């Protein structure tokens, strides 16, 4: 059994994962089981769940209650918002974004998947790949989640049958392949009984792959952001030395490196790098740093320092795929604020081109205003240029937020460039 170990905790890695499933596929049970079997549930939490289960007249502790957070959800018995869970094993720390499954909550899965290295998609072994599975898989593909796991749950209800699992696995692989997902794996399990969640199942000797948790512990984390060209969005100019500071979203920077300051394109050379006060010769994607350049002044929030040899496209017109996350609609001609990393510019929704049906992955021409959970190709006209990369090449500099200038509400998540390709 895996437990939290402190000896290795200091050097262990961090894996972010997002879960998705249709109602009643057993997602809450799986997550509860994972926390419980990895000993991440503490005595008083379990006690609270046991007493809540008794109050509802259940015989045994309902592990799903461990993860159903807010009161409204408890009352309706459904999960309605992304919730984050934390657990650890000997060599990894995990941040799990638990996203609700209903059709009308696609935006929640988009939110959870936007930061995930790995997406877990649940199916009920009796039903196999259903329309919702297609949607969830398409979201993972759209958001370019590097790894996708299909958790084939409730194997106990299909007599732990190998043929049934093989059938589902086969269909899922074809689906994932058609969407261009690079790494997929299916795991047969029973969240309720704990088979293949943390410990290997004795009921399914035909399955020789890793258990669910073993897979999470082993999956390759190296997305190789460091191999991408350097992108440092400037967040703030430090008091004291005037050095622009930010988090490197892609690539590496070295002292002596040639860079450009976007969107103006002014060339400069990096003369010093500090990592939170400590000088360093070399920094990589993910680090929060500050840099000094050989040019004076005039670099501020909203600028981006980029590798001089591989530069983003500076443009005032952006084609993007939008996931609409607000209840209010968004029509052609609407004025918006576009947030691109640390740069915010005004803009107009010049045209709404089509809608993407996540279940069939078909684009249909449609210029109607966007409704919540719609996914659409659009063209944005910007008042000022941004320096962007296609989302498929660099997630950090290919993502946008659309904001309502009237009250600051977040309207849409944008992915620069065409969907999937």
């Amino acid at each position, binding site marked *: 059994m895996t437990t*939290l170990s*402190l000896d290795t*905790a*200091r050097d*262990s*890695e*961090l894996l972010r994962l997002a879960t998705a499933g249709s109602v009643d596929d057993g997602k809450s049970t799986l997550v509860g089981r994972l926390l419980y079997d990895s000993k991440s549930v*503490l*005595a*008083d939490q379990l006690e*609270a769940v046991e007493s809540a289960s008794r109050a509802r007249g259940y015989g045994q502790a309902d592990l799903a209650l461990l*993860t159903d*957070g*807010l*009161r*409204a959800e408890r009352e309706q018995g459904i999960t309605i*918002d992304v*919730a*984050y869970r*934390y657990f*650890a094993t000997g060599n990894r*720390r995990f*941040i799990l974004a638990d996203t609700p499954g209903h059709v009308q909550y696609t*935006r*929640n899965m*988009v*939110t959870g998947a*936007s*930061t995930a290295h790995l997406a877990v998609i649940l199916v009920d072994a009796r039903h196999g790949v259903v329309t919702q599975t297609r949607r969830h898989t398409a979201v993972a593909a759209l958001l370019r989640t590097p790894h996708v796991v299909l958790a084939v749950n409730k194997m106990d209800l299909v007599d732990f049958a190998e043929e049934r699992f093989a059938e589902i696995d086969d269909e899922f692989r074809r689906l994932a392949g058609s969407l261009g997902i690079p790494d997929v794996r299916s795991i047969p399990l029973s969240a309720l009984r704990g088979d293949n969640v943390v410990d290997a199942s004795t009921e399914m000797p035909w399955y020789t792959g890793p258990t669910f948790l073993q897979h999470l512990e082993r999956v390759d984390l190296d997305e*190789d952001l*460091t191999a*991408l060209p350097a992108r440092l969005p400037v*967040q*703030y100019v*430090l*008091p*004291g*030395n005037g050095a622009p*500071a*930010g*988090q490197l*979203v892609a690539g590496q920077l070295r002292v002596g490196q040639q860079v450009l300051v976007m969107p103006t394109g002014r060339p400069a050379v990096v003369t010093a790098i500090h990592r*939170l*006060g400590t000088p360093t010769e070399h920094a*990589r994607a*993910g*680090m*929060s740093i500050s840099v000094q350049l050989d040019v004076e002044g005039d670099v501020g*929030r909203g600028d981006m320092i980029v590798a001089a040899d*591989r530069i983003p496209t500076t443009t005032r017109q952006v084609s993007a795929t939008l996931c609409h*996350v607000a209840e209010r609609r968004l029509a052609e001609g609407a004025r918006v604020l576009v947030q691109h*990393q*640390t740069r915010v510019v005004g803009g107009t929704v010049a045209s709404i081109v089509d809608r993407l049906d996540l279940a069939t992955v078909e684009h249909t021409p449609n210029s109607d205003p966007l409704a919540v959970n719609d996914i659409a190709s659009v063209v944005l006209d910007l008042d000022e240029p941004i320096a962007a990369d296609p989302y498929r090449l660099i997630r950090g500099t290919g*993502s*946008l*937020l659309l904001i309502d200038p009237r*009250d*600051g509400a*977040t309207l849409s*998540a944008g992915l620069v460039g065409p969907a999937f390709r």
Partner: protein
Amino acid sequence: MAFTQTASETAPSLRMSYLDVLEAEAVHIIREVAGTLERPVLLFSGGKDSAVMLHLARKAFLPGLLPFPVMHVDTGHNFPEVIEYRDKVVAEHQLTLRVAHVQDYIDDGRLTERPDGSRNPLQTVPLLDAIGQHRFDAVFGGGRRDEEKARAKERVFSLRDEFGQWDPRQQRPELWNLYNGRHDPGGHVRVFPLSNWTELDVWHYIAREEIPLPAIYFAHQRRVFLRNGMWLAPGEWGGPRRDEQVQERTVRYRTVGDMSCTGALVSEAATIDEVIAEISLSRITERGSSRADDKLSDTAMEDRKREGYF
């Protein structure tokens, strides 16, 4: 334009442990606030989470000084060690300290003492008043999502209306690393840079960065008495009652707060490493072991958050 992904050698010095990842993320959040909001403030109670948050915020702006003030909501039921620590930290790092006193509100009748003597729930009004008076538009808190179920869905940037209220149904989706702190006039945003940290992460980071803490976090001899299964320290706040026996124990605290409802843990852990070892083995969450007021009901925390508490 296509970028060829050459397999790059990542030098060992460039590896990031999970603590490095959490640190870089917290700093990114703190810098976003400084870059987009006008008048931030960092809540500083002297507790370990706020000590870590302050440490991160200071590192975010080095070699400069912290570009915003810190604020303490003082319940009046303080551990003297914590106030001493607070003042030392403020002096050492040349911080600007604001204090909101619960006692002032009790003295002039704006708030009344509760029958159980706990002042934790009384902090909300002085906190909101201070936010209004100083026109703070961003308030950093040390809340972590692992602390409590209602916090698991809390955003990193959490909007509050002009009455400081939180509406769990009206939260903005938070995508990628793009935060949106725009708020209504008169409202503000609560920001939680430690959202993704666990209690153990906080302790590992304190150990790694050698962050000083108030002495009460480590095992010491203290006169305590038992109430509702918790070891409380006698004090002006009103304990012990006649039927409660005071005895000397070796204890430490897992959180600092109002003396009337912060329980001590019987513990021999006198160093950071010993504390980490003890927490790793512990089977009770931080809140369960030391916060009397959260035990009231399963949704106690959610109710208080709606009202504007942290």
